[in-house]
């Protein structure tokens, strides 16, 4: 029996040997496959399809939301509007608030993650630009369609550069080379950073002027009413007005940018462009939504002074915060008010809206004129 078995095995070995020899060495060669799990970059840049452009646009829009949770913790805490209490993350209340002698650390999550997320969207926009350029050169995209993509991509880049700059302020930002994936530009001064953003927005506006009546791609419902070259340009000009007031260019904001934006004193304050959220697969939920009564160790609460300093007729007190049953405290800080800006997990988050444009106008008017002149201005909206 044993003999037979060994004999059988030697036949198998012989057959294998014959197979190997008859097929040459092919059985030992390995195929150079592309990434089986994801879309590979070189493919998209060198050989894109119009539907690749669409998914890149959607991915860019989606990516804008990536680290907004940390971004809001940063600006909300440092601006003393709110506290993010998280018992497992002491740096929220130590580093961000400068507790004792603690200082902001350049290597910690609160700066590295939102900063990296902005630049990831900028990279995606740069990939989008390269892919659209290939399609235009191949004659698949008309010049109008190509200009539409450029207008969108450059506006997104400018917006993300601006978000990064609001984190680093005087420390400035760096330009990301469009095609070189391995290097990064020098650190720019704050003024040069603002110029870079303004220039990008202006270039985008010119592209949008030459982009025809419709985009060759779709935008989410967050861009409802702003999803054609003409209306998207109003969004672009709104961002430009925001940059102008950062640059203290009051006259530019008032005369050049606001009139071309969607500012409308008769329209709802909430009109504008939003990040939308959903429970769908690979989508995100609003990262700032939380139970306003959540336990102290994991809660989002308003800074008490924000409530105390509000004027009598400030209606925001009734809708943006909730009086807690029990005060939340952590690390020697305390608040009686749960943060309730977003009332459910799919509540949209504004990128820019009518309310801000009206405030930009008020600010620019106040800066251009004497404060005394403001009394006569129609600011009752």
């Amino acid at each position, binding site marked *: 029996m044993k003999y037979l078995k060994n004999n059988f095995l030697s036949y198998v070995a012989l057959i294998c040997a014959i197979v190997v020899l008859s097929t040459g060495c092919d059985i030992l060669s390995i195929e150079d496959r592309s990434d089986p799990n994801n879309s590979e970059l070189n493919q998209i840049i060198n050989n894109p399809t119009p539907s690749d452009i669409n998914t890149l646009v959607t991915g860019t829009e*989606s990516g804008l939301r990536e680290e907004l949770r940390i971004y809001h913790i940063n600006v909300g805490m440092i601006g003393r509007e709110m506290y993010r209490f998280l018992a497992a993350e002491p740096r929220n209340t130590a580093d961000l608030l400068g507790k004792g002698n603690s200082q902001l650390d350049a290597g910690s999550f609160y700066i590295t993650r939102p900063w990296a997320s902005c630049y990831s969207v900028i990279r995606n926009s740069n990939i989008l630009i390269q892919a659209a350029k290939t399609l235009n050169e191949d004659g698949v995209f008309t010049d109008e369609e190509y200009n539409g993509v450029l207008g969108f991509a450059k506006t997104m880049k400018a917006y993300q550069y601006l978000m990064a700059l609001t984190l680093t302020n005087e420390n400035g930002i760096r330009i990301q080379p469009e095609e070189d994936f391995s290097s990064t530009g020098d650190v720019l001064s704050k003024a040069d950073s603002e110029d870079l953003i303004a220039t990008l927005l202006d270039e985008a506006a010119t592209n949008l002027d030459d982009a025809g009546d419709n985009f060759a791609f779709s935008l989410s419902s967050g861009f409802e009413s702003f999803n054609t070259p003409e209306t998207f340009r109003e969004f672009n000009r709104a961002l430009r007005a925001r940059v102008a007031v950062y640059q203290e260019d009051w006259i530019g904001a008032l005369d050049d940018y606001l009139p071309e934006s969607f500012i409308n004193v008769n329209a709802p304050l909430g009109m504008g462009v939003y990040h939308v959220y959903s429970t769908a697969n690979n989508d995100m939920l609003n990262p700032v939504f939380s139970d306003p009564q959540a336990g102290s160790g994991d809660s989002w609460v308003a800074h008490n002074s924000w409530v105390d300093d509000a004027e009598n007729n400030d209606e925001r007190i009734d809708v943006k915060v909730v009086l807690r049953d029990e005060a939340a405290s952590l690390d020697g800080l305390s608040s009686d008010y749960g943060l309730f800006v977003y009332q459910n997990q799919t509540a949209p988050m504004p990128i820019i809206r009518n309310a801000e444009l009206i405030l930009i106008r008020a600010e620019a008017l106040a800066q251009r004129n004497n404060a005394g002149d403001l009394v006569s201005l129609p600011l009752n909206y």
Partner: protein
Amino acid sequence: MRTGTFSPHPNLCTFSAEWFSQEEINWSDIYVATLGLRGDKSDRNGNVSKIYMYPKASFAWNMTNEDFWDNDAIDNLKFRVAYGQTGNLATFGAKFTSLAPSNIGGLGGTLVTNVRGLENIKPERQQEIEGGFDISVADGLASLEFTVYQKKIQDMLLQRELEPSTGFSFESFNSGEMRNRGVEVSLNLQPVSNPDFIWNSNINFWKNTSKVTDLPVPAFDVGGFGTSLGVYRIEEGKSATQIVGIDPQVDDNGNLVTDGSGNPVIVNKKLGDGEPDFQMSFGNDFQLFKNLDFSFLFHWKKGGDVINLTELLFDLNGTTPDYDDTDLTFTDFRNEAADITDDTPNGVKRTSLLGVSTDQFIQDGSYLRLREIGLYYSIPESIISKISEGIRGIRFGASATNLITISPYRSYDPEVSNFGNQPIAQGIEVAPYPSSKQYYFHLKFDF
């Protein structure tokens, strides 16, 4: 041989091909030499058709088998040297720069991932040379194995942080050189061996030191929660397991350096090292009257720092056992930078240092641990045979693991890490579950 390996994830199949040949020459059991060569190729490499070769060779001289050998006290004496190369493949997909799904409002989108692919990625190559001897004396009363080694790792495969403004936060790093040197000693003793009492003892000692000997890129972090809470940093000329954190800057006289407005200047410094000074284990087996077995194993790790962030969480909630004690002291410049004195309560000292220094988190992870202990009794055959002819043996007993740990470390367990058992960034502790103590009762029948 061509192999295809499948992991549980869909679309995660790699193909590799390898061949191996080895020759052994043995001359009367006195000289034993082996030579081997292995060739590998894989589609995880940038160049899928390139064959990477890994030779190995070893030589042993068994002196006691020589004709001239006439020392009866030494049973066996063997000298050996070995050289070998091995390769580690990059992780699957490390060569691709890819876009992953990122959807919004029901639309399907793609967003570039934060890991930049390395198109020409190749395997990491490890060269090891080791030498040593084995000796046993007096009919097995004692035997000793001694080995020294040097391992050189070329084209190290690690994940490196990039300037995120490139659009990527990480890439597979595939360069540089690192060196490990170490010594391993194993001593087996049988101090007592008579029918009623057998005692076997096994003592192991091992020590390793590492150094990054070549790094063509700037130093980078490979694990941790950011510099202010301590990170492992790969840096040329330094230990591969150094722990870097923030600390106030001092001048040559050890005095605190302040900026124009009187605030301390905070800089990055090496504050510890995860590598132990050495480790030892002591195992002992006793057999009494043929039926009673008792064994235990101690493990001693001397040195090796751990980043203790568990204590920070307790401190922030004011519940650390030593919160109100004042026995913990820091150097003067740290006290000055954090506005504390030696009389400040420990808990306040440590939380005041948060954001000023990382030193308070980096603690000695030495321990002596009773890993295993067991006591068993086998019922003598004479009794079993009276109970049943079908049963050949009955054995019962009790054992336990991790029963005792003695450590200066100020948290649950110096041995566990939140980042699991990975090559470098071990020993970062944020309230993970400690190693469990386990108790077993045994009852065994042989039929």
